């Protein structure tokens, strides 16, 4: 018997299953799609509420408060540069995608990470799953998503969400497990309840690690959101994708610069927020 028969059977089975799911679960996926796109539209609406210079000023103020005055000025100018390149709308929709996907990833990832931090067996089960998610090429997540949710931002969000979640889970779980033994002893010797121990001892010590996880999730989301341009995510990813298809090198470079700017600004801001959180815990 030829091995290829097995794989062919498997492929056929996968196709039928996916077809069956999309036929029978249409109402469900329609619902998921509208929730995702609704959230995305809401965030985007919020970001476009103010003109570009207001967003740039907010970024500058955050940079000043969290890092220093120079970084603040640079962050503000960098965002203004995105607008000057004529890519403001695209930049904001990319930002909206990243924010929505990251928030989703944190909402799911942090609680899972907390449970994994406490339940050793769950963590051991999760480890290979997360390894798998992180080693598979990120394109993979676009395919089932596009089959079920169709072309558009919802598919981009789901794929980005999947890619952004693992670091949040890993670093939250690590943070929970890292509580120094002497503080566990202090909690026990002071007669803390399990809940008090979590809130007063474990969580404060886990916060630096959780914050690092948030930063990592955000960076993963940025990576994925460009790839998601293929499925009509909108924003800079799509700009780059269509520029590549028409060999419009100038536009693709502009969009790439805008992506780099956005990534760097958000990375620095969240990193220093994380450092601030761990600085207080030191």
């Amino acid at each position, binding site marked *: 018997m030829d091995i290829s028969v097995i794989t062919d059977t498997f492929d056929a089975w996968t196709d039928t299953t996916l077809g069956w799911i999309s036929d029978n679960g249409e109402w469900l996926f329609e619902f998921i799609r509208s929730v995702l796109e609704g959230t995305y539209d809401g965030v985007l609406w919020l970001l476009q509420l103010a003109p570009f210079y207001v967003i740039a000023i907010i970024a500058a103020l955050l940079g000043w408060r969290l890092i220093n005055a120079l970084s603040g000025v640079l962050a503000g100018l960098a965002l203004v540069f995105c607008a000057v390149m004529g890519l403001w709308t695209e930049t904001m929709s990319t930002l909206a995608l990243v924010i929505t996907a990251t928030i989703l990833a944190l909402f799911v990832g942090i609680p899972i990470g907390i449970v994994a931090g406490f339940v050793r067996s769950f963590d051991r089960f999760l480890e290979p799953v997360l390894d798998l998610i992180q080693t598979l090429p990120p394109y993979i997540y676009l395919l089932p998503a596009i089959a079920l949710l169709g072309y558009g931002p919802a598919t981009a969000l789901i794929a980005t969400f999947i890619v952004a979640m693992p670091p949040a889970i890993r670093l939250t779980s690590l943070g929970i497990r890292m509580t120094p033994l002497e503080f566990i*002893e202090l909690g026990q*010797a002071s007669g803390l309840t399990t809940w008090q121990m979590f809130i007063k001892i474990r969580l*404060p010590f886990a916060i630096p690690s959780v914050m690092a996880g948030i930063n990592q999730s955000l960076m993963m989301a940025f990576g994925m959101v460009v790839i998601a341009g293929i499925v009509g995510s909108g924003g800079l990813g799509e700009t780059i994708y269509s520029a590549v298809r028409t060999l419009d090198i100038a536009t693709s470079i502009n969009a790439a610069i805008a992506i780099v700017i956005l990534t760097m600004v958000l990375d620095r801001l969240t990193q220093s927020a994380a450092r601030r959180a761990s600085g207080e815990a030191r």
Partner: protein
Amino acid sequence: MNTAMNDSNEVLIDCQSVWKIFGGRAQAAVKAITERGLSKTQVLQDFDCVVGVSDASLQVRRGEIFCIMGLSGSGKSTLIRLLNRLIEPSLGKITVKGKEIARLNATELRDMRARNIGMVFQSVALLPHRTVLENAAFGLEAQGVAKEERHRIARAALEKVGLADWTSRYPRELSGGMQQRVGLARAIAADPEIILMDEPFSALDPLIRRQLQDEFRQLTKSLGKSAVFITHDLEEAIRIGDRIAIMKDGVIVQVGTAEEIVTKPADDYVSDFVAGISRIHLVKAHSVMRPVAEFRNSQPNCDVNALLRASPEADIGELIDLTTQSDRDAVAVVENGTVVGVVTIRGLLRGVAGKPAG
């Protein structure tokens, strides 16, 4: 109960033949110990289990500071953690305030730890993101005391350890000695009857350490607390402890007052330990004096009643002072108006050298 409260001999902590065995086959090892009386080395060989504490029995009385002295690996840190059940005993019975702690359920145990047993750690374990005041109030916070009330009590506790001006600082701004004072304030703020001190001063420099030892003893006595104090330093144990237990390889080798341990060491291990300890303030007149009749026989010319007088509890330091002030070479020991013995220079020298009178 009221009579018991005032009884200084009331036993607060009672350990009876407590064992702690670490390892995968601890249960089997415990069985072998109870049935066949296996020794520590046999347990290690046959079961691959380490005996942390072996057949330890001790009683801590109300108002007493009980020191447990041992080198690292002697099991003293394990033993103190058995007293508030941070570590479960493998065998034996531990009673705290008349309750067998192994029988307490989770709520009762939490309550016991929160209200009756405070603990101070070598690492201090001050929460870095909380102020000194919030740290000192931590035990009360665990008990659910309202914020204002617990801050008031914590402030009073910080005042007792001399840190009233530091309440709004963070632990990292304090020196090691001050941090350990906060640790002590945190323990006394919850007003427990028993304070467990796990090598609290080991990491401090000698001068601060002595100062804290004296403060701790004075504070514990003035508040009427009982304490179990772990140390690897015999001088610290002597300075602080009313009674001292010496531990070696998980076994309590000797329990007694500082004087008993220094003058009558139970074995070679203890006598090696006490060899370098100054006897001047430990050895008392009653253990170096000679009977009056014997003194009269050896020095018939000397009038016992004309000698300077000291109480049986006078230490060698005081006796040396008296002898140097007097023109005679002896001091009379007087109890209830009658001369019960005479301390000669020879006796003093024997005392200083750590040899019993003879």
